[in-house]
């Protein structure tokens, strides 16, 4: 009880400060803090800490780079519902460079970027959206994408790769990858990196990662692929509300059959949920309204590496990717040819043994030494 009381007191106090600073409601602040604490898997006692940090934090400068992408990651961020994009951009961070959102253009814009890099050396966050191609593709302000990234990453506090393109190469890196597009990971040396894959990534996850850095001054716990564990530890399948149907072996066989209407598992229709790690099944989209599986379509697996080369979206996971007919036929023909050649040799051996055998006489039964 006492702890709850103290926590409640803290929230109240920091909420007031928040209201004063941002003009946002105290109630909303409490919700944000609780949610952040929960998604970042802090203990309940951490809610107070989150509140304290959030209310008092200085707005860190952010440089947001766009390379080979479709801006859907930014679009997704704009649909963040709590905190909203405006809250985030206007109150929580200082978005100093974002080609789509900023008013500045040309030299002015590049100067703003350089100014931030200089003034907030070692303190700014670098957000990267899109994959990085090899020269000569994707030049901005006369500079190569790779050079821009390296330049900006050099003095950043951390790099946040948003979306599957920046995280894993995504669509630009799909076979045959004509621009030799790459993810951020290999280009920034040992700079701390957070990957928030997804096509697009969950707005709440982008917001939460920024908020986490804001409140605690460090990056959240990450997995092998630099993804925040809080959002990427479970697979879609693990958290899917249709999971019981999978366990019972009840599958929709087409998008308009009885099973589909009954909301059965979409495995047979190509759902990649079992091997896709993301938070869609819990956070959902559009202010928690729905997510693809809830709308009756299988998961595309967009937040996993190579998702674009992962076979048809509608091919079940248990089917192979790619065409095997020709190679199988060629192999069989080669095997048959070799087999026939070998058998020809064997037959020769047999025929020789038969034809060269001299008639056996009684003397032949005595063993010679």
């Amino acid at each position, binding site marked *: 009880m006492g702890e709850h009381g103290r926590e409640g007191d803290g929230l109240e106090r920091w909420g007031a400060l928040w209201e004063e600073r941002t003009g946002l409601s105290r109630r909303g602040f409490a919700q944000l803090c609780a949610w952040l604490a929960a998604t970042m898997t802090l203990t309940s006692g951490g809610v107070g800490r989150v509140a304290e940090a959030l209310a008092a934090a200085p707005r860190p400068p952010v440089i947001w780079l766009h390379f080979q992408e479709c801006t859907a990651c930014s679009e997704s961020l704009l649909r963040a519902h709590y905190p909203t994009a405006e809250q985030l951009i206007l109150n929580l961070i200082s978005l100093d460079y974002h080609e789509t959102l900023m008013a500045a253009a040309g030299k002015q814009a590049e100067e703003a970027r350089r100014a931030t890099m200089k003034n907030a050396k070692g303190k700014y966050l670098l957000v990267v959206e899109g994959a990085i191609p090899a020269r000569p593709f994707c030049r901005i302000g006369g500079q190569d994408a790779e050079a821009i990234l390296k330049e900006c990453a050099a003095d950043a506090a951390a790099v946040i790769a948003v979306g599957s393109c920046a995280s*894993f190469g995504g669509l630009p890196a799909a076979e045959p990858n004509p621009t030799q597009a790459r993810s951020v990971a290999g280009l920034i040396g040992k700079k701390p990196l957070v990957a928030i894959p997804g096509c697009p990534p969950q707005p709440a996850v982008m917001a939460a990662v920024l908020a986490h850095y804001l409140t605690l001054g460090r990056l959240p716990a990450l997995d*092998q*692929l630099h993804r925040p564990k809080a959002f990427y530890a479970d*697979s879609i*399948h*693990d958290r899917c509300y249709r999971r019981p149907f*999978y*366990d*019972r*072996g009840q*599958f929709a066989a087409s998008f308009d059959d009885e099973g589909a209407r009954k909301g059965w598992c979409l*495995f*047979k229709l190509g759902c990649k949920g*079992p*091997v896709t790690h993301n938070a869609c099944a819990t956070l959902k989209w559009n202010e928690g309204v729905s997510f693809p599986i809830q709308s009756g379509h299988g998961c595309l697996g967009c937040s*996993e*590496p*190579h998702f674009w*080369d*992962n*076979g048809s979206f509608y*091919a*079940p*996971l*248990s*089917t*192979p*990717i*790619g*065409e*095997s007919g020709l*190679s*199988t*036929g*060629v*192999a*069989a*023909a*080669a*095997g*048959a040819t*070799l*087999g*026939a050649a*070998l*058998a*020809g040799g*064997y*037959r020769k051996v*047999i025929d020789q043994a038969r034809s060269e055998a001299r008639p056996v006489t009684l003397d032949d039964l005595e063993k010679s030494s």
Partner: protein
Amino acid sequence: MNDPGYELLLWVRGPGWILALAVFSFGMAMRLFEIFALGRREDLAPPRPAERQGSPMRTVWNRFFPVPGLFERAPATHVSGYLFHIGFFAVLFFAEFHIQLFRHLLGFGWPALSAPLADALGVVAIVALLAALVSRMRDPVKRFLSTAGDYLAWALTFLPLLTGWMAYHHVLVSYTRMVALHLLAAELLLALLPFTKLIHAVTIFVARWYTGEQFGRKGVQA
């Protein structure tokens, strides 16, 4: 990428599968030619009149069952053998996920077993195969006959079953990784089948036919 599960899954679903299928078809074609192109001499002895001959096709069928008395002499071999084969083929051909594969390959599918039943049959196959291994190592005849090839064939058969079950139940490692291992194990089985004693899956029917024909022409239903 440093997540071996996902990378491996992509590989086994893509190039791995194509490779395994190619090795299988190469090996199978080669082995079948090696075996069936040797030829066979015509039997000049006049057979029994047609109505008294044994049917080779019936021999092919009959050999699914032991001759009377044999079961009692080797119950472990029979029970583990039957249960393993029934469980293995039930799961291979009637688990939903596998039917999807056959549908992809053949263009048509068939009804699946219910998930709990397929699951149970998989467990039956796993337990039976373990029992078969114990029996192989303890039975004097089987221990005496067994070679490295027998144990290799056992492992090739056992691993897909085990990893399939573990993937389905999300045991030990992530589903992604386990499914990848399952497919890898299945591809190993497929690729090595023609080169191991597992080729019996194809040849026993012909072997039974030859023997059935030899017995049959003499008037004995083997």
